[in-house]
């Protein structure tokens, strides 16, 4: 009986505050790191059109950014047309029944020739569908 009282007193003395702090810090860490997925995209002034809402659960297989200074980036890495074709070919080969989903995010003031060069390369390896990334001016944001 005496032993039970002592153990109960010991349990009450355990300080849970640091543990709660650590658990919540870990939760916040994972919430923040989940944003690292956006490293596939660069900061681009997209064309301002409402378009349609993207499925948050389904990320495109390939994201091609076209910058205002003429660079072509795949997953934020500069590529040549030959590298783009090679990446698209590999993507098409590994794509399942869902198909190969390509998102192109061009700078709104980029020339059509820059977009045409990328799309011609993609069409050349067998891509038949693409999506143009836009920014809805009606949505909240900077």
């Amino acid at each position, binding site marked *: 009986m005496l032993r039970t009282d002592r153990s109960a007193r010991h349990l009450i003395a355990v300080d849970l505050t640091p543990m709660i702090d650590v658990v919540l810090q870990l939760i916040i860490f994972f919430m*923040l790191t989940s944003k690292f997925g956006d490293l596939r995209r660069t900061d681009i002034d997209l064309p301002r059109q409402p378009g349609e809402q993207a499925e948050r659960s389904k990320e495109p297989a390939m994201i091609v950014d076209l910058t205002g200074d003429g660079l072509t980036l795949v997953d934020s890495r500069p590529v040549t047309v030959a590298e783009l074709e090679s990446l698209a070919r590999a993507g098409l080969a590994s794509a399942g029944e869902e198909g190969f989903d390509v998102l192109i995010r*061009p700078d709104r*003031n980029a*020339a059509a020739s820059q977009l045409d060069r990328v799309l011609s390369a993609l069409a050349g390896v067998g891509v038949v*569908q693409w999506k143009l990334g*836009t920014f809805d001016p009606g949505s*909240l944001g900077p």
Partner: protein
Amino acid sequence: MTAFGGKKSERSRRLGALPLISLIDVVFLLLIYFLVTSDFSQEERRIPSALQTEGGGIRSVEFQPQIIDIVPAGDGVRFIIGQLETGEQAALTTMLARLPREPGVAIRAEPDAPVWAIAAALQAAKDAGFEKRSYVPREP
């Protein structure tokens, strides 16, 4: 009165034992989290389109898509569909709304036309109810 007062002070002593510091920590960290993530809340949208090569993909004259040509003009662009021509996206949507939907619409642009005009033409076709939208890149 004394008994009531005694009970009250006991309760406040118990309440005082709650670890409020960690609660405040959590509230502030959540506040900072939402402040930081709200900077990334610019919502990206998409306009799906088919990809068609010049001279390819059209098998029948009957189902030949209506073509929107984008030509730069001064500070803006002109959208040309056959004899029809406009420089405004809203007017292009109205023009497209009068056309049959079945053949679809194909868009092509002059090399020095800006990309925002291509997005505007795709959006106008979508708003006019065209399910079949394709873009025809010019061969480099």
